[in-house]
Structure formats: structure tokens, C-alpha cells
């Protein structure tokens, strides 16, 4: 909705779009072609077995779990988005 405001006018639809794009971006990171090359593979995350894992381990955990959990829902949501955008522009 184009409205003359001096700040960005968010709608809930734009929030959904942002969420889908961000999740897609995380899901696209390939494990062995990309993440291992830059030292972010799954075997490089579990460093110290102290009480708290570091930030890097948490990030790697997050990426891996997002990729595992959201793979199938993302397929469905992306297909729906493609169909809707083709139909309704």
C-alpha cells in the first residue's frame, strides 16, 4: 500500500515475506560445498564441552536445525508463493 509517510510502513504481509526470504537464505547454505570450506561445518561447531557452548557453536547449531526442520515446510510455502505470484502478480 503506497502511502506517503516518512517511515517505512510495514504490513503483516511484508513481515511474512521477510520471514520467508530469511528462512530461504538460511536453508540455501549448503553443508559440504560451502559451510565446511569456511570452517562452519557441523563437525567444527562442537568445540569446548564446557558448560556453555560459544557463539559460533550456537550459530552453527541454529543453521543446522533451521535447515533440517524447515526443509519440507519451505518447499510447500515456496511453491505456494510461486503459484500465487504467477497468478496474481
Amino acid at each position, binding site marked *: 500500500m503506497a502511502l506517503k509517510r516518512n517511515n*517505512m510502513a510495514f504490513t503483516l504481509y511484508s513481515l511474512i515475506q521477510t520471514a520467508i526470504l530469511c528462512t530461504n537464505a538460511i536453508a540455501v547454505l549448503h553443508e559440504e560445498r560451502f559451510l565446511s570450506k569456511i570452517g562452519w561445518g557441523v563437525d567444527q561447531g562442537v568445540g569446548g564441552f*564446557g558448560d*556453555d557452548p560459544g557463539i559460533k557453536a550456537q550459530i552453527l547449531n541454529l543453521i543446522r536445525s533451521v535447515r533440517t526442520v524447515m526443509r519440507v515446510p519451505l518447499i510447500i510455502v515456496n511453491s505456494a508463493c510461486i503459484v500465487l505470484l504467477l497468478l496474481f502478480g
Partner: protein
Amino acid sequence: MDLPHHGYRETKPRARAAPTAGDSVLFEDTSSAAPAMNSQGYYTSGYNMGGPSNDMQGGGGMNNLFADPMANAAMMYGSSLANQGKDMVNKEISRFMSVNKLKYFFAVDTRYVLKKLMILMFPYTHQDWEVRYHRDTPLTPRQDVNASDLYIPTMAFITYILLAGMALGIQKRFSPEVLGLCASTALVWVIIEVLVMLLSLYLLTVHTDLSTFDLIAYSGYKYVGMIFTVLCGLLFGSDGYFVALAWSSFALMFFIVRSLKMKILPSLSSDSMGMGSNAKPQLRLYITVASALFQPIIIYWLTSHLVR
């Protein structure tokens, strides 16, 4: 049934005593007859539907009795359907969030709301910021003024939307779509802030008992400051707007830092695992200060267009 009629009739002037007396006889007849028939019809048809004793109650109530079995059956079916629907909705909702936990956040009373609003606007004299517990469960907001609630943020959010509509109407820029847009923008900012806070708390493995609802509550407290700022801006013009903005920003920053310090930063009494890495307390401090600094920015962002 007779007493109120008598009372009313006495206040009327005497000249109209006779016709009202005549009307009252008619009114009394029908009013005393019909409810008796109706009540008798309902009660008996509730107990034995369509029994032979119903037909002997009187010819005048035949319409009631014919309609009643069907209406009663329909009513009972409808109420059972509604109960089933209610149970299903409750079950589905309780899969996502526990309603009991939500009820805790809405257990407020007037005294708590007033004290909390005063603390939000003037937190500098509040001494004790510790959240009191009662056998390992946090106290409800009714008993502890430091507990966070969701009532104030919800009401403040709705009031902010209404106030934004009013402010836009004063500037003759109002239309219903703008109101919805303002509401969804504010909601999106709350969601973004809560998600960023959750992400940063997860990444830094901060073990707190801050639940998602607590974070939503702390995000929503800024709407009280926004309402105050917009009101001052409307009443006192641009200067009043900036003064109120500065005041509510400082108050909110102080409030957020003091409240979150208790929950995020390790206190001396808790068993911190030795002073492991020095980065941890600093990063936690950064989180607290960053979320506090975010408040005035967002207040300015969401209210500056309302006050020109």
C-alpha cells in the same frame, strides 16, 4: 408485579387517575397471565416434551408448547455443538501456548496498574527491583509490583492506535486504511524486537527465566511512553513533543536496564560457573544496553509522523 405499578401511578397527576386505573386492570391481566403461561410452558416442556399433561395446561399456550419442543431440541443441540467447538479450540490453542501462563500475565488489579504506570514514567525513586518468588513460581502481578504483565502493554497498544488515528485526524490526514497500517506497523516492530531479543539471548546462551511473554511485555511497555509523548506533542506543539520524548526515553531506558539487569546479568547470589570468560558479562551488558537504546529510537520512529 403490582407494587411498581402502584408506585408509578401515585406520582402521576390525579386527573389521570381513572383511565390509568382502567388501563392497569388490562395491563395486569395480560402481564400476569402471559408470563405465568410462558413460565409454566417452558418448565413443563423442559421436563416432559410433548407429554399429554402439557396439552391440558390451557389452550392459549398452544403456540408456546408447539414451538417449545423444537426450540428446546435445537437449543440443546446448538449448545452441545458450541461446547464441542469450544473444547476443540481450547485444545488447539493450548498446543501453541499454555493458557495458564497467559492467565498469569493478566492477573492484575487497579493498584498494580497505577503503581506500574508510575514506575514506568518515573522509575528513579523505585528501590527494590527484585521479582519476588513464592516457592519457585513467580508471584502474580497482583502481589508483586515488579512482575511483568501483559495487560498494560495490550491496553497501551490499543490506546496508541486510537491516539494515532486521532492525531492524524487533527492533521486531516485520516483514513481508515491509515489506521490499520499504523497498527500493523507497530505490531511488526514489536515482533521484530521480540525476535531479535530471543535470537540474541539464544546465541549468547543466557540462562534466564525470561519467557517469550516476558519479552513481549517489556517490548510493550514502551507504548506507555509513546502515548505520553504523543499527547504532549498534541497539546504543547513541537517543543512539548521533544521534551516529552526525552523524558519518556530516559525513564524507559532506566526502567529497562534496571529490570533486565536483574534477569539477564548474573547476580552475586546466583551460582555463576566461576568467572569463565570475560566476554560473557560484557555481552550480556551489551544486550541490555542495546535493547534500552532501541526504545527511544523506536518511539521517535513511530510517533514523529503524528506530530508535525
